[in-house]
């Protein structure tokens, strides 16, 4: 049977999380199809060059601009019947959409997989990553969301998939899009960044985040935050790294003024190299960091900005 991947995109380009999801799909089968629901008729063609996919199933309609789940889930239900697995990234897009489609198909979704054992069996973190469960699904169509950081992405180019259209667009009179505030930044996205520098409650104010931004700009890094910093109103919610925020695994993660609550560690402990800067030498963050510096961040950050 073939594998269906639901593309996450912004109508202009396919998001990187989709490429990680296709990488997970490769572990399940060779015939991978990508479902692209959009208002942009060019997007399916540009998606057709992604490696490892054999077909793009394109649904193009103006009503699909915001991809609300009330419209998308019934479409997935209809398409899914010819597949053994349906995968989407475990981002807010996939988390919102997939359980709705799963219930329509009477299938018990497997959320946020971090490993594939075989066609039916998957690894996934539970209890904020305190434990890893190996779970077997007995449903005939398996709906799965994929933890992007656990799978190395496939390339955007190199493939030449056929594009097929799926015209049966579901109507949605239940919900409508009103507005969106999407942060615009020249820095990389948190979930795709090679380097991340994050601030916690120790930053003391949102204004002080410029100390991190200076370093981020030198390193080409993304800026993140702990839940404590977001709850305190220092920075917006989309900065949050953690169990209930973004899960990241960059090459280098620099935690500044972050104590290391379990819910934060759950979002970043798979980073390759972790640096912690904190004035409290007993902070739990030092137990997971490769390099710890016990110091006042307000002294250290300007010096670090000079020396890197």
């Amino acid at each position, binding site marked *: 049977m073939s594998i269906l991947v639901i593309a996450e995109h912004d109508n202009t380009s396919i998001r990187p999380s989709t490429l990680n999801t296709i990488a997970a799909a490769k572990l399940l089968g060779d015939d991978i199809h990508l479902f692209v629901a959009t208002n942009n008729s060019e997007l399916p063609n540009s998606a057709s060059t992604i490696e490892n996919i054999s077909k793009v199933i394109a649904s193009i309609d103006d009503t699909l601009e915001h991809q*609300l789940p009330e419209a998308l889930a019934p479409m997935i239900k209809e398409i899914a019947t010819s597949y053994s697995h349906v995968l989407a990234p475990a981002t807010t897009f996939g988390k919102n959409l997939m359980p709705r489609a799963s219930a329509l198909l009477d299938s018990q979704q497997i959320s946020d997989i971090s490993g594939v054992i075989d066609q039916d069996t998957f690894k996934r973190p539970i209890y904020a990553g305190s434990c890893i469960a190996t779970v077997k699904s007995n449903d005939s169509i398996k709906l799965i969301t994929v933890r992007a950081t656990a799978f190395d992405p496939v390339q955007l180019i190199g493939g030449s998939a056929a594009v097929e259209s799926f015209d049966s667009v579901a109507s949605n009179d239940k919900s409508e899009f009103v507005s969106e505030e999407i942060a615009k930044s020249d820095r990389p996205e948190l979930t795709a960044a090679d380097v991340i520098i994050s601030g916690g409650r120790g930053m003391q104010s949102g204004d002080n985040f410029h100390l991190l931004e200076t370093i981020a700009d030198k390193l080409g890094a993304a800026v993140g935050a702990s839940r404590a910093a977001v*709850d305190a109103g220092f920075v917006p919610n989309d900065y949050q790294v953690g169990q209930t925020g973004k899960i990241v695994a960059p090459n280098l993660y620099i935690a500044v003024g972050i104590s290391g609550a379990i819910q934060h560690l759950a979002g970043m402990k798979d980073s390759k190299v972790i640096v912690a800067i904190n004035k409290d030498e007993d902070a739990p963050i030092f137990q997971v960091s490769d390099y710890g510096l016990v110091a006042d961040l307000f002294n250290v950050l300007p010096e670090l900005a000079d020396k890197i």
Partner: protein
Amino acid sequence: MKILVPIKRVVDYNVKVRPLSDNSNVDLNNVKMAVNPFCEIAVEEAVRLKESGAATEIIAVTVGTSASQEQLRTALALGCDRAILIESEENPEPLVIAKALAKIAEEENPDLIILGKQAIDGDNNQTGQMLSAILDLPQATFASNLVIEGQTANVTREIDGGLQTIKVNLPAIVTTDLRLNEPRYASLPNIMKAKKKELATKSINDLGIDTSARTEIISVELPPQRQAGIKVESVDELVDKLKNEAKAI
């Protein structure tokens, strides 16, 4: 307006959960249990809607063993008017929970169903969306702001790139994110009053739904542990290590 608030009994968020020694599941012997934090936010939002005059009745409901009565009493102490326990085996799957909740929703006809976006045990983040699908109602997940306007709700949602606002027709399902509100604590007089509030019990087997499990837990293990590294003494040493040892910058 009538509000249904499904809640869940979970391990207290301060407990560090470990696998059983035979790795068959997590070890939940003698651990502290509590209302799932996202469910507390759901209860709080419903109570605020009642306090503002927008809602008239709040019904708390849970699917679980009889021990879950404790969490329903907490919800009653926080301001819910009555409670329903759907008694089941331990740890029903989200799809089974959603089917059971749908039956209660069909009986009670709430205008709004508010529940947590995920339970901090399985971290599945499924039940609200599944319930919406089964009831064929709109869903507003990961809410950080909720405004009722007549027969619609305007909901601001926390999404990866920032915030999105959608408008859903009532009845609707809303799932709560962390910043929707800060839940209150139950006062002692309210805890006492809650003991007298109605708590009905139903068996999940009487609801006419398929309760069979679709998944099996093969094993539960600790994740690979990170070794604590070294402490550096200065910024110079840190930069040197990152450049020459870790080759990370």
